[in-house]
């Protein structure tokens, strides 16, 4: 064997064989054929993949019906794996925000079966996650509701966040009877399920004048296409009949806010943004970057990063960023 033992040769052959098998598995995995596989739950999803229905509905949906209404269905529970079975293509919106579980149940008026509504309670793990999915779906031109902070109602539905929960109560039609029932149900849910309230400290650092509250959005991550821009609150302002999007984020400390401001500047210039001089440098640390016909203003102030995203013109943008900075500065002195 020329100095090589039989064992060494056999061992080498086995290692080569294992390597070939490993490489083959790797290649096959890379060409995963979805069509060749069936769900372990169900192949046709019509029966076995039906959502989990608990024998005893969870406490939160037990006794939630307002006077004159009865449960119309059992409570349904959906985890992230099967959420799409309830809300189809909208499931991703929730799952990307750390969704844990949806509980849903329908109730019907005892006198008029056409008057029914369905409760959707999304457990989002953290209050800010719940607020994020709420804000992404916020309807404009709605009525504020007193049942909870940020709650609003439409002709047929009521939407709000309650701690870690995002709650939708959707009526089958526009109806005064249903309107009242939705509010009663919301109050019962809030009372039955205490949860840590959402604290949006950064909101108090934004000037209230001309604020368009219904436009408020909360981005958990990847705001404005930049992966480091997480936990960003945005809200539009009406400036000279144009909407300007102001953003703010509270960071862990001053250095983190400054670092994010610098990183955002690098990101924007790397994708073609052009730094423009601040002709009236009243705001320390202000970056003004023109990008594709719009202007980005941003600065760090204390533990905050704030600014204006995609301002449509410099004239109003310059004024708005000054208003924002001055207001924040005053609030931080308090």
């Amino acid at each position, binding site marked *: 064997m020329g100095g090589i033992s039989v064992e060494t040769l056999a061992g080498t052959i086995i290692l080569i064989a294992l390597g070939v098998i490993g490489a083959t598995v790797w290649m096959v995995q890379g060409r995963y054929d*979805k069509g060749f596989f*069936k769900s372990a739950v169900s*192949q046709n999803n*019509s029966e076995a993949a039906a959502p989990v229905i608990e024998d005893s509905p969870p406490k939160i949906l037990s006794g939630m019906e307002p006077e004159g209404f009865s449960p119309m*269905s059992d409570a349904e529970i959906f985890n992230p794996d099967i959420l799409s079975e309830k*809300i189809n293509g909208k499931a991703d*919106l929730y799952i990307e925000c750390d969704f844990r579980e949806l509980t849903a149940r329908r109730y019907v008026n005892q006198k008029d079966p056409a008057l029914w509504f369905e409760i959707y309670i999304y457990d989002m793990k953290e209050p800010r996650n719940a607020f994020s999915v709420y804000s992404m779906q916020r309807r404009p031109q709605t009525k504020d509701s007193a049942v909870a902070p940020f709650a609003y109602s439409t002709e*047929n539905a009521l939407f709000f966040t309650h701690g870690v929960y995002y709650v939708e109560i959707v009526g089958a039609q526009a109806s005064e009877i249903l309107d009242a029932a939705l509010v009663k149900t919301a109050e019962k849910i809030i009372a039955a399920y205490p949860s840590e309230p959402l604290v949006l400290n950064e909101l108090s650092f934004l000037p209230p004048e001309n604020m368009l509250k219904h436009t408020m959005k909360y981005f958990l991550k990847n705001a404005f296409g930049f992966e480091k821009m997480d936990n960003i609150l945005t809200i539009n302002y009406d400036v000279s009949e144009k909407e300007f999007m102001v953003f703010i984020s509270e960071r862990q400390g001053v250095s983190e806010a400054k670092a994010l401001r610098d990183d955002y500047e690098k990101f924007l210039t790397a994708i073609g943004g052009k730094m423009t001089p601040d002709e009236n440098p009243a705001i320390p640390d202000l970056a003004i970057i023109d990008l594709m016909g719009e202007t980005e203003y941003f600065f760090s102030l204390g533990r905050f990063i704030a600014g204006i995203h995609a301002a449509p013109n410099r004239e109003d943008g310059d004024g708005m960023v000054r208003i924002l900075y001055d207001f924040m500065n005053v609030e931080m002195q308090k």
Partner: protein
Amino acid sequence: MNDLREDEKTISRRKFLIRMMKAGASITAAGALAAFLHDKKAPSGYAGGEVVQIPDFSLEKDARSLAIVSGENRKLTLEKAIDALGGIGRFIKKGDRVLIKVNAAFATPPVLCATTHPDLVREMIALCLKAGASEARVTDNPINDPASCFLLTGIREATESSGGKLILPKSEYFKHTTLINGNLIRDWPVLYAPFDGVTKLIGMAPLKDHHRSGASMTMKNWYGLLGGRRNIFHQDIHNIIKELAMMVKPTLAILDGTNAMMTNGPTGGSLSDLKATNMLIAGTDSVAIDAFGSALLERRLSDLPFIQKAADMGVGTADYESLKPVRITIN
């Protein structure tokens, strides 16, 4: 070296046991790691079985045509649209067995327009039966409790009251299909039993925003025929819509833009998500229908790549004006 090899040939009992223990520990560790990594919920291999193809129901010899009718009354707009396309007789002959694929994806009331409106289902069945169809079937594969979906959307009542036959999905109704030249639809279960004996296929879809694809219209409507763990296709939504459009060739497609769901689709939930766009679009070219629908939804074609992708595969044309659509307004 020779001494070492000689030593290995005459291995002691002690060394042998140590080696065996090491080998055993390695095997156990590998097994434990595999058990730890094993996803019990993961798909298992398809054992095979009959593979079917959905027949081509299109009117191949007819030129592609399109009708756009303005009005708020769905019954009237549908009637006018069919008339504009040449009358129901162009599509349905005596003795035809018709399958109407609706969107019954959610157990929501008709007023939310997340599903095919029952007024349209009722009228379409009536038109088919009046034209001599021997049977008008209605089906969809809503994942969430099909019985509740058909009941609460009003589609069950509309079907049964107008002489149609509602087919709810059952496990034995699914067969595997493979789309020729497809990358996604390969050995995939589709709701096939309702097609048994069918000679004409009509798709009826509401016009909706869709969180993943940007819009849900006539081509996306065929998604409801898929079985299995179909939500995995959401990761490649534009290509799956393209492939569905390649796979399913209907006789007629209807897009209901009477109240378009402009935001928060595909579920919606609020009447404020809707806009009274008051249009019904009917035709034999789903790409053209969806292209027109995208304008109603205030989307650019570039926002909805599946439209151009389907057009590139020869399913239809995104230039709906090239079909010289018949436009009618009902006052």
